[in-house]
């Protein structure tokens, strides 16, 4: 089983889940990130994901491997989609199996939080009004005192 991988075609959640099966596991938690029809007040019609794949896979694998050390879980995996996606499409999937549900929830949440903060993946949103923009980059860069600027640079700081 791959700890972290990319795909340019729809994520096979059924197959990915199957790989986490373990006879000693009593709980399975999965997270799916879906493309929303809006973000920060703008109507979204689709988006594109791009990654620095070489480093992203290393960092993604470190996150999942680290979660498997930190939490008493049986197996975990994360798959991220790349390329153009429409509203409702599945952008990222995280699955965790564990003996007990508490650890499965904790580890799953930890992995998606870390992936969102640390893995070099970027998202360009296309808005219904014709605009587009790289999330966390452009509006913050042009308005450094926007409250989100601090939040994002803080998030970045965590992973340094």
């Amino acid at each position: 089983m791959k700890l972290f991988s990319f795909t340019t075609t729809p994520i096979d959640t059924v197959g990915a889940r199957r790989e986490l099966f373990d006879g000693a596991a009593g709980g399975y938690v999965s997270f799916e990130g879906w493309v929303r029809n809006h973000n920060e007040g703008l109507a979204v019609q689709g988006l594109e994901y791009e990654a620095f794949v070489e480093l992203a896979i290393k960092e993604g694998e470190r996150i999942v491997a680290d979660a498997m050390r930190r939490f008493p879980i049986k197996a975990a995996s994360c798959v991220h989609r790349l390329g153009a996606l429409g509203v409702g499409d599945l952008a990222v999937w995280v699955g965790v199996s564990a003996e007990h549900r508490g650890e499965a929830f904790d580890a799953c949440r930890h992995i998606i939080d870390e992936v969102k903060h640390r893995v070099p993946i970027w998202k360009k949103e296309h808005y219904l009004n014709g605009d587009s923009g790289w999330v966390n980059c452009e509006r913050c860069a042009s308005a450094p005192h926007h409250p989100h600027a601090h939040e994002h640079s803080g998030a970045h700081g965590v992973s340094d």
Partner: protein
Amino acid sequence: MSAAPTVYGLILAGGASTRMRHDKAALRYGGESQLDRACRLVKPHVAEVFVSVRADQVNDPLRASHPLIVDAFAGGGPIVGIRSALASSPASAWLVLACDLPLLTDAVLEHLLRARDPAALATAYCSAYDGLPEPLCAIWEPAAGEALARWQSEGRSCPRKFLRIHHAKLVDPVDAHALDNINTPEEYATARSTLETPSAPESMQIKIQYYALMREQAGRSDEMLETAAATPAELYRELGERHRFTLPRERLKVAVNGEFSDWSRGLRSGDVVVFIPPVAGG
């Protein structure tokens, strides 16, 4: 950190090279002996540099030009050199280096010293090849002296094995080749050509790859740059002016050769640099 023991430097030059059929300390690169080169590299980072020698080497001219620490225990090998240094100044820590590391750089030493944990017996790099600790590019703390004495009294001598089972702070390598050592004439030839190839002293070939917003602002996915920038921070300043990047460096991270890096890491010709704007996975 201000209470941490002072660090002295120790260059190990007591070994006899069987494979090189030569005294390794005397191998020359760019007109400089390997031993002199090692001493020169370490000097700015420590209080004082000593050379570790066997008793029968104290009059060797190459070695005698440096302050010496003579093996004070029986058995030989690096463990005796390290123990002798720790015994000579029991309140100090020792940055111990093999002398046959011609590719070692300032940046590698600086990174190790910054990562130092004075509460561990030693702070050492993991090998880029097998992940095991590298005892001969490591900071040995005062408490290691007694533990090494016990280790040797049990009939053991390998400092690498010592670090594997004692409390050592391990540091990921910043450069896969920095600790390559020279054991054969072929390796010597390769290292010489790497070190002696003339290049403008301050100019390097750096490849930069761009992603996402950076790619759009640079107008390209990658470029080769002849630059004098010594660090990624300097490189970003240089390229930021050229491409009018909008993101301040504080909002970015940087990767060199496929791994996250400090902005102050020393760049080397051939490095591949990626500036990483704020991420947005998921």
